[in-house]
């Protein structure tokens, strides 16, 4: 009986050692993967930024240097239309930070777009279909017509896309009412660059978390 107990405990010991080794290997793999992703993303960022700078230079060439320069920047109080949401979550023994980009959703316009942005399309249609005015107009309307004619308590109906376009135009209007299409192109390029940068920030968080885990394991095995 004693021999069987010894055999059982040694088997358990071997299993737990194997599990530990698997976990260590997973941590190293995670570290190397995140490092690779970081380098790939940084590589993809450069051409996006380069395109943005080229478009900005073209816009400056067509509109004039005096129309696109830092002297025109809005220095009156205003909130950023594009911001970040930061969440912390516990990953095994380490805390990891997660960044989420919130594009064109400034707190100034939060109340207007919050109801539209958080509803699924189906729910939105259901809501509109149940309102008395739309029911009286008949059931054969398309969803777009229904959406346009929905009565709004605060004025004409506004969709999420309209709000995004409005914020984009507001950003461009710093450089005048009529801007070169190249400037719009530059805006889109830098928006894409922002998305890549947020991904890079998340990968950075993973790298640092994985590095700490690998370092911890190296200390315990030495």
């Amino acid at each position, binding site marked *: 009986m004693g021999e069987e107990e010894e055999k059982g405990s040694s088997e358990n010991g071997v299993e737990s050692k194997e599990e530990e080794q698997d976990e260590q290997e997973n941590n190293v793999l995670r570290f190397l993967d995140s490092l690779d992703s970081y380098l790939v993303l940084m590589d993809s960022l450069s051409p996006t930024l380069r395109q943005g700078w080229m478009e900005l230079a073209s816009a400056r060439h067509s509109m004039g240097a005096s129309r696109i*320069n*830092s002297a025109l920047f809005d220095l009156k109080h*205003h909130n*950023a239309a594009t911001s970040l949401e*930061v969440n912390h979550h516990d990953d095994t023994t380490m805390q990891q930070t997660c960044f989420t980009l919130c594009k064109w959703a400034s707190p100034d316009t939060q109340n207007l*777009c919050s109801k539209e942005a958080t509803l699924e399309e189906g729910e939105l249609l259901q809501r509109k279909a149940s309102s008395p005015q739309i029911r009286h107009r008949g059931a054969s309307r398309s969803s777009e017509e229904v959406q346009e004619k929905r009565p709004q308590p605060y004025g004409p109906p506004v969709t999420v896309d309209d709000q995004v376009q409005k914020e984009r135009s507001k950003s461009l209007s710093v450089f005048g009412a009529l801007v070169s299409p190249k400037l719009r192109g530059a805006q*889109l390029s*830098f928006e894409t660059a922002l998305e890549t940068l947020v991904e890079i920030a998340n990968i*950075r968080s993973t790298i640092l978390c994985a590095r700490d885990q690998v370092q911890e394991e190296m200390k315990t095995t030495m």
Partner: protein
Amino acid sequence: MANRVQIPGRNSALIAMIADEDTITGFLLAGVGNVDLRRKTNYLIVDSKTTVKQIEDTFKEFTAREDIAIVLISQYVANMIRLLVDSYNKPVPAILEIPSKDHPYDPTHDSVLSRVKYLFSAESVASERR
């Protein structure tokens, strides 16, 4: 490009920038510009007249602010304050070094990569074992 709007929640934060004029202009077009009631901006335009002290002070200010989650800094500007950037080790705000028009990205100077490259060095592994 997705036009879906994500509503900033209670833990929303800003992106700060320390870079040349064109890079700042581009990111301001993308909507990251913020000016508070005291007329403080979340960006610093670095040009030939900007001193190293100004850059250092701005970096320290941005990394101390609780409403900033990411600091974008052109790598050539980060090289001017390399000691300060490399000694920064908090998870938030995240410091991201970006290329500029005249200075392409150099991974050998990146502060994130320099913090992990010692793990690939045979000397460091050998010294740990001693």
